[in-house]
């Protein structure tokens, strides 16, 4: 992670101060703000499915309760029409909204704090131009005592380090641009970095994967077994741009991120992100767990289920088909410590994102009606210890837990 120093922060702010003199209504500035809102995937939360752009209303299920993304259109009463530029800066950089009201970190201000003042104000300029929509949203639907916003002052003290991104002079401009986007506006760690009990980022293991909303957001460090170490820079570029590459296809929450954000980024920024991620982490191989022996009964059962239900698409070799059926052999997700996503897609199925570059949008069917917990566990154990893959066996109890949780909130 980047080291921060007070001096550097002041210097950086000083450098960008000149930008304040720009015409806030110029097309270039508003267009840059629109693009930054794409980088930040603002629509992902603030636009409800089928709703007016940025008029709020998408409910986020957090481990602590429900938060609803507010209306950020310029409507003065129900949106942010009355917000000053200073308020807007404080919101993104410090998590303090209107009248100093403290935000919950479902709004990823711990990441947005890395953004330059100029970028934040360009976004502000853009949001001032979108159609105002009157749509009152009750954001805070958390239970007591978490609904007391002042509690966040305490949380921030433990988990939040405000401050702008500091370039690493040892690295290239492309690398630094990638780091800025990943750690700042794109807030990748919000999903991909493991969390403390209080929901703060465990920054010493940044981007090594985390579970949220019934999905496991995989390790995106350069680890060759559990992360993206086996992917080339071009694999990453294709994935971010089209939602699919020779290895896999984006689905679940990442499908939304690709659809709203990464597929609309410019090629330079996608390359910058890929450059940074490929240079992030040790780049080694995490310790391999022992492979489950092929003569194990569970492996026998798993192999038979695989042949019957999976091989038609994913093939006997586990190679799948590029841009259509994910490759299981060598897959980071298949070998991840947490089988949440694996159990989920076998039980409920999932649909891959469709993008302009890869419009197919194929889907995995649901098997919950046909395979019991032990059978799902067996086939997952089989794919995790076959074709050179290595990961712990999946227990029927873990599948049962996922089945129960999907029944409650599909």
């Amino acid at each position: 992670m980047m080291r921060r120093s007070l001096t550097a922060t002041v210097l950086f702010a000083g450098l960008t101060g000149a930008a304040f003199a720009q015409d806030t209504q110029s097309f270039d500035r508003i267009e840059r703000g629109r693009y930054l809102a794409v980088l930040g995937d603002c629509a992902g939360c603030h636009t409800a499915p089928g709703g007016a752009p940025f008029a709020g209303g998408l409910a986020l299920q957090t481990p602590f309760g429900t938060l609803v993304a507010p209306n950020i259109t310029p409507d003065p009463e129900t949106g942010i029409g009355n917000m000053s530029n200073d308020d807007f800066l404080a919101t993104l950089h410090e998590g303090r909204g209107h009248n100093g009201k403290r935000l919950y970190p479902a709004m990823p201000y711990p990441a947005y704090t890395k953004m330059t003042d100029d970028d934040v104000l360009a976004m502000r300029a853009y949001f001032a131009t979108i159609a105002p929509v009157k749509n009152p949203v009750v954001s805070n639907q958390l239970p007591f005592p978490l609904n007391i916003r002042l509690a966040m002052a305490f949380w921030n003290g433990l988990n939040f380090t405000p401050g702008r991104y500091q370039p690493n002079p040892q690295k290239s401009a492309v690398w630094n641009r990638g780091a800025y986007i990943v750690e700042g506006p794109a807030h990748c760690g919000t999903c991909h970095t493991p969390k403390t009990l209080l929901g703060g980022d465990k920054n010493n293991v940044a981007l090594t994967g985390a579970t949220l909303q019934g999905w496991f957001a995989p390790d995106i460090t350069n680890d060759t077994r559990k992360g993206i170490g086996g992917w080339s820079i071009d694999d990453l570029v294709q994935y971010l741009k089209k939602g699919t590459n020779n290895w896999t296809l984006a689905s679940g929450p990442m499908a939304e991120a690709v659809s709203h954000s990464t597929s609309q980024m410019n090629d330079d920024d996608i390359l910058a992100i890929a450059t940074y991620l490929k240079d992030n982490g040790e780049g080694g191989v995490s310790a391999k767990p022992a492979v489950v022996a092929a003569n194990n009964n569970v492996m026998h059962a798993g192999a038979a289920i695989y042949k019957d239900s999976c091989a038609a698409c994913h093939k006997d070799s586990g190679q799948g088909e590029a841009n259509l059926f994910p490759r299981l052999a060598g897959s980071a997700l298949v070998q991840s410590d947490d089988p949440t996503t694996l159990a989920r897609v076998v039980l409920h199925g999932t649909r891959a994102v469709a993008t302009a570059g890869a419009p197919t949008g194929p889907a995995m069917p649901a098997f919950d009606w046909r395979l019991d917990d032990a059978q799902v566990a067996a086939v997952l154990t089989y794919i995790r210890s076959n074709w050179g893959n290595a990961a712990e066996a999946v227990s029927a109890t873990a599948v049962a837990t996922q089945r129960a949780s999907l029944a409650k909130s599909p």
Partner: protein
Amino acid sequence: MARKLPAKDVVIIGLGWTGAILAYELAKTGLNVVAIERGPWRDTATDFPPAYAQDELRYAVRLDLFLRPEQQTLTFRNNASQTALPIRSFSGFLPGNGVGGAGIHWNGQTWRFLPTDFQLRSHLEGRYGKAALPADMTIQDWPVTYDELEPYYDRFEKLCGTSGKAGNIRGQKQAGGNPFEGWRSSEYPTPPLKQGLGATLFAEAARKTGHSPFPQPASNLSEAYVNPLGVKLGQCTYCGFCERFGCGNYAKASPQTCVLPALLRFPNFSAQTESEVTKINLDSTGKRATGVTYVDTSGQEWEQPADIVLMCAFSFFNVQLMLLSGIGKPYDPQTGQGVVGRNYAYQTTSSVSVILKDKILNPFIATGAHGMIIDDYNGDNFDHTGLGFVGGGYMGFGQTGARPIQTRPVPKGTPKWGAEWKKATAETYQRACSLATHASSYSYKDCYLDLDPTYKDRFGRPLLRMTFDFHDNELKMSAYLTDRLAEIAKAMDPVELVASPRKGPYDSTIYQTTHNTGGTVMGADPATSVLNRYCQSWDVHNVFVPGGASVFPQNHGYNPTDTVGALAYWAADAIRNRYLKNPGPLV
């Protein structure tokens, strides 16, 4: 009372192959396009996932994907002396229903017609003399040539990713392909499917008897493929569940696997499902359509105004809608005058069943269009002098599957049930195969479609009435072709052989094919056609029937889909490049 919707540029009736292709081609130009589809939305992952798509009882026996007679049906009689009765259970042919239409449940056989097929009457009269054709045969030349359609066949095959081996690339004969086919501008997009033992044995026998076998062109893909719309198809798994089934592996070409993912990205395209168009509305002159009226599932009637109306329903329902809307003059079989409903034709099929000795054919390893075929007896590929008939068809081994409920081959004389039947099934299943002929059905004065005087549909509109029977020409042809096929089958050294040439009368309760053609035929002369060479109505210039099988002047010895797709692209180009610039009659 119909509620009026905001006007669109284009309204499409039916979202199957032609509807999807036209919608894509016209939405691409920026036009606002709406498709109105009688049946439900259908999607690979939700409607036929591989987790349960291979359900023979649901799809092949109970016909889950097909039109229900209570939605829409037609009446049938063999000839004008009979009273037609409604078909209350589809069995002789199976119209599709819902988004994708017949493009979902087809087998994937992707054939081009022969160059001489497009000049059928002038070619046959030129070679055999006018007297060779029966007086009541109403075949006619197409208003387009093979050379004109070739680039559009090529486009449709590239859309589908069709697997096959070319026999003629720009006039150069290609080893291993069909030596009789018309020229192709390029090789098939994907290589031929793998062949099983049955097809291999047939091909050996065909070669031994002096024929030229080749792999059937198949839109069940031999390998993964990305089509020109950027949509990716998977590799066929030879599961043997094609005809009557949707493909859960993204391996069979369909509107779902080839067009819809790209089409749905256009914000200027929308689809209205479970809504049936009841009428095309005309202005006071009767020369211009103003849009369509449709009814949704709640019974609400809607008027959808549009500048262009595209009739993309299954062939029967294009004819019915045209008759109900007063477009074109209805055909009168007494006088031979009128055109709408004229030249209904079908397909003439037959089979030769064989049981081999000591073979394990594994017939369940199959696809809809896998197989080895010969084309020596199709169209005018052979000399008809002295044979007493014209026309022909392809024949060969085309195993589409050997599913457990409906595939129960047993030797002659086996009881129909009980222990002996079970024993015979077990002993025969691996050794039996059925060879088939698939031949032309030419058009006749007394084979036609009109409105039924008695029976009405659920909206109170007259049902379409079919008057059809096989003619001597087709029955003689079937006998000749079936004899030739039996000769090849004998060279496979069978222990039992049963040849079943087609016999009359036509029986609408026994499944033969769903290749129902004609009724809104295209032609060069308004006195004998409903549409001009661009599939445009002669009478109402903003109504097109862009390529459905109802535009065929007669049916040839091949499956219709490739020609349907080629004509869809041909018509789309005419609309885009000519009609939009200067709306009016194109001929």
